[in-house]
């Protein structure tokens, strides 16, 4: 890395500038995810038997002003290697190329393209979900509640696993593993203005 030696007055100006930036961002802080109160889980079905899974590591970059929801933006990044399934053989299986192919595609991303308010607490977030390099447009109904300084965005959405080539090859048979996967999420955020 190249080091730049700034002259003293320039250094002072830079310091003042970053202080100003910090003050500005303090005035409108970006919402921050509280991982311990957030959850992304899913239910898939094997011959009718529900199999619960969850992701233990994910991040959210959110801009959301309840007074102008249509200007908001959600980016959810899920670490697919953090998946948790009920059995150790399922855990070993899911990282394989036929499923998440976690070595090549460690992350899934949802990027919102539009937010529509239904009422004060209900929104419809349209966006693009990318898993394994394959993208699908989604419309996600989200309920937003507030308690103290914590804002919680929760909802669920049904995905079709085969649209993302999850469970490829011999696993394509939907009579064994159903195509539909129900994803549930609860994102707890600080730094969102009151509804």
């Amino acid at each position, binding site marked *: 890395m190249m080091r730049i030696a700034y002259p003293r007055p320039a250094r002072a100006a830079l310091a003042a500038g970053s202080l100003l930036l910090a003050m500005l961002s303090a005035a409108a802080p970006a919402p921050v995810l509280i991982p311990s109160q957030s959850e992304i889980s899913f239910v898939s079905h*094997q011959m009718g*038997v529900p199999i619960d899974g969850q992701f233990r590591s994910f991040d959210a970059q959110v801009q959301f002003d309840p007074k102008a929801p249509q200007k908001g933006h959600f980016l959810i990044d899920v670490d697919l290697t953090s998946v948790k399934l009920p059995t150790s053989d399922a855990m070993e299986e899911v990282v394989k190329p036929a499923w998440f192919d976690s070595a090549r595609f460690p992350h899934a991303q949802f990027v919102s393209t539009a937010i529509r308010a239904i009422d004060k607490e209900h929104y419809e977030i349209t966006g693009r979900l990318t898993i394994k390099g394959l993208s699908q447009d989604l419309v996600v109904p989200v309920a937003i509640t507030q308690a103290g300084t914590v804002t919680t965005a929760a909802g669920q959405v049904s995905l079709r696993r085969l649209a993302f080539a999850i469970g490829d090859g011999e696993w394509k048979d939907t009579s064994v593993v159903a195509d539909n996967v129900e994803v549930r999420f609860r994102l707890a955020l600080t730094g969102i203005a009151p509804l």
Partner: protein
Amino acid sequence: MPLAAYILIRRAIAAAAAGTLSEETLADAMNPSAVPAQPVDRYTDVAIALHWLLAVSLLAAFCVGLYMADLKLSPTRIRLFNWHKWAGISILVLSAFRLGWRLAHRPPAEPSYLPAWQRRLAAAVHHLLYLLFFLVPIAGWAHSSAAGFPVVWFGIIHLPDLVGVDKQLAETLADVHSALAFTLGGLVLLHVAGALQHRFVLKDDIVQRMLPGRRP
């Protein structure tokens, strides 16, 4: 030896042993052709149908269970496990119905010419078989619950979990399920050996009571 004669002679011997041998019984044994052949007292058609349906189901469930246990995770493993569970619950339901039927319909009496210890052994094997028709599927169901896989009968009917999710308990229940299943297998062998002995060694009518076919 014709079967009727065999039966009459055994009856006379049993009566003599018990000290109740009458002249009539002795005369029958000396001249069996004079006694008209009795029609075989059979199980009801429903009992016969349930017996053979369960025989086939138990054999299939046992073989699938043996084969699937060590399979690696694959669609085949998932299919076999679920079919096995569906079969197990079906066996449980059929057995409950069969027990009800059995209690409501007296089965044909064991022939009196059989030694008492044989009758007692047959009764004991039958009682244990019935007990295991229930215990084996219930242990399997509880194992599935403990392992975190609720049983969904035929992929449609969600059955309640018998125990909470507990990996250690699941392993214990797997061993219990397997031990009970092998015990059931052993009893079935004993039951079949007894049937074969009656059919091919003693050549009596005991097995005919449970064979499908037209009534005489």
